[in-house]
């Protein structure tokens, strides 16, 4: 073909414009779905949903030292609140300098906070914000202990989306890693952490970065 070379970009866009010659009428998106949960006990619902997908739930700060007692090497994000580690006698590995995947593979557990949690679906969302660190931290270790303040729990997915910044890398976690690939039976534990433990703490616990 003679003439100027058409870039793939120009070509694809031109094809799509040509495909729309019938000028479809504008669409009004009806949004009659629930944007906010009706009054329910969010904590109770969240716990129920977590347990249903085989996450282990602990209540209150006192649970942390007990949980950590069995851990030798613990990975944590740099800005973990210092008092979360009170009484922890094992090795703390902070993410500075950045832990390599191989380092992380040798950890017994990782301890983080979260950005927001969804009661309706039993989901915790991490967005690399405070007390969460890089995505890889919560991926390679086989056990993830996640501290959730009750005030971080919202009812529905739309409430969580509204609280999140799209530019931050996000990981939505609902129960431990699982597969349904064999006869559609759900089996927990493939590549992500095989144990997910959630520690619920009251909202008045101030997250103060401490080293």
């Amino acid at each position: 073909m003679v003439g100027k070379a058409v870039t793939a970009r120009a070509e694809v866009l031109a094809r799509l414009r040509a495909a729309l010659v019938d000028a479809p009428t504008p669409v009004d998106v009806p949004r009659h779905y629930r944007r906010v949960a009706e009054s329910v006990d969010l904590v109770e619902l969240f716990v129920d949903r977590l347990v249903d997908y085989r996450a282990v739930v602990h209540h209150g700060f006192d649970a942390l030292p007990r949980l950590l007692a069995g851990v030798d090497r613990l990975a944590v994000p740099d800005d973990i609140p210092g008092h979360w580690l009170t009484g922890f006698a094992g090795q703390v590995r902070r993410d500075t300098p950045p832990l390599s995947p191989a380092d992380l593979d040798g950890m017994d557990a990782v301890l983080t906070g979260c950005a927001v949690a969804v009661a309706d679906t039993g989901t915790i969302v991490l967005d690399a914000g405070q007390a969460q660190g890089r995505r890889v931290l919560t991926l390679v270790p086989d056990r993830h202990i996640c501290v959730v303040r009750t005030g971080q729990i919202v009812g529905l997915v739309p409430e969580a989306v509204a609280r999140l910044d799209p530019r931050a890398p996000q990981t939505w976690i609902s129960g431990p890693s699982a597969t349904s690939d064999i006869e559609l039976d759900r089996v927990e534990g493939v590549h992500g952490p095989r144990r997910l433990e959630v520690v619920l703490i009251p909202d008045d616990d101030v997250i103060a970065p401490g080293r």
Partner: protein
Amino acid sequence: MRHPATPAGVPSTGGGRIRAPLPFPTAARSAVADDQLRANLHRATRTIRGKRVRAVDEVPDWAALRDAGAAIKADVQRRLPELLERFEAAATAAGARVHWARDAAEACRIVVELTRAAGADEVVKVKSMATQEIELNEALAAAGIAAHETDLAELIVQLGDDTPSHILVPAIHYNRTQIRDIFRRRMADAPADLGAEPRELAEAARLHLRRRFLEAKVAVSGANFAVADTGTLVVVESEGNGRMCLTLPQTLISVVGVEKLVPSFADLEVFLQLLPRSSTGERMNPYTSMWTGVTPGDGPQDVHVVLVDNGRSAVLADPVGRSALSCIRCSACLNVCPVYGRAGGHAYGSVYPGPIGAILSPQLTGVADNASLPFASTLCGACADVCPVKIDIPEILVHLRQQAPHPVAERTAMRTLSWIMRSPRRWALALRVARRAAGPLGAWRHRRTGTRTLRRLPWPASAWTRSRDAPLPAPQTFREWWEKQ
């Protein structure tokens, strides 16, 4: 390389693994006769149907979510060129590089070049329909690059030298002992005494892939959604293999069909509810990852997005058929389809099987190239009932049947059927009439032959029965049966 001989700017059909090499009835014959396959499919689809119903029933605003999902996708189709440009600008500003591909071959070439530029001779892959569609693994292999599938089901299929037979669970046609046998035979590090418990099989896959994840330089993914306003990509998964691929390697290449866009980040609130409940029947899948370009110090620092047409512009050009582009690949329509349940996925000859495949593949390739697929359906309507984005699959099937080259008698019959189907009242009435007329005849045939089919219909429909038996209308419709369950 030459591109399809169409003048610039004309919607164009695509290539790759979307063409059925054999007519559907021929391809389905061996599957229908395979009792093991039928039993595996039956068990799996029954399980998932039950889970989906429970997950959907607990959502009081499900109908409103479907309405919103369907409307958002219709809006995207209407504004696709503009939204793609917006996506490109946002992703680029966030540090990603956006590439465009007219067809499968061009998309493959881009991925090969990017992989070479990253200095890698192997890639880890997240399960993705788009890369299956463009036959990326084959193209990588031809370029000397090994592609490692990391999704358990994709791994099973890859080790078994097979092709996927289901959108969500590509190895749905295997049961646990068959999977164990494949692992024992083809997975070098699988324990010799590997058992058939799903837990053991998953553990074997974990160990097999772990080192690969930790050392991989390049990952290739698809995307479930791409947000136009922000340039964000979303991958929905279960096992964590997706997170491994999206987080650990330095280079990430995502192959994304142009129809995957949603306008705004807030629109995800609809699809993150519709998709998991419709596909795996879960309130939420274990892991959803979202990333926007490059995050310094966190995850891949060399991020690419390949936007692929490969026939989608041709689908968009058909005002009736374009809503097939709304599909979010949940696979609910496969799991309820009586034809899929008997024939399995391979009979469709395309990476897109089942009802969605019957309407999407022929539109991607042009109906003439996939003429039998629009007939791979009983038009029972179960697919449309479950579709989370309300694609009227039977309507599109009938529409495509009219474009298929086939005898006049058939076309006439289909035209009538289409007219009847356009009105639910006419359709219900026609079914009732047909059933009443066929009732005694069907009972007689059933007593004599054990089937409710006729060998020969009177002219002009005899053209149809020359090559197949005509089913008599079922005593009750799927909808009636369903409502009674």
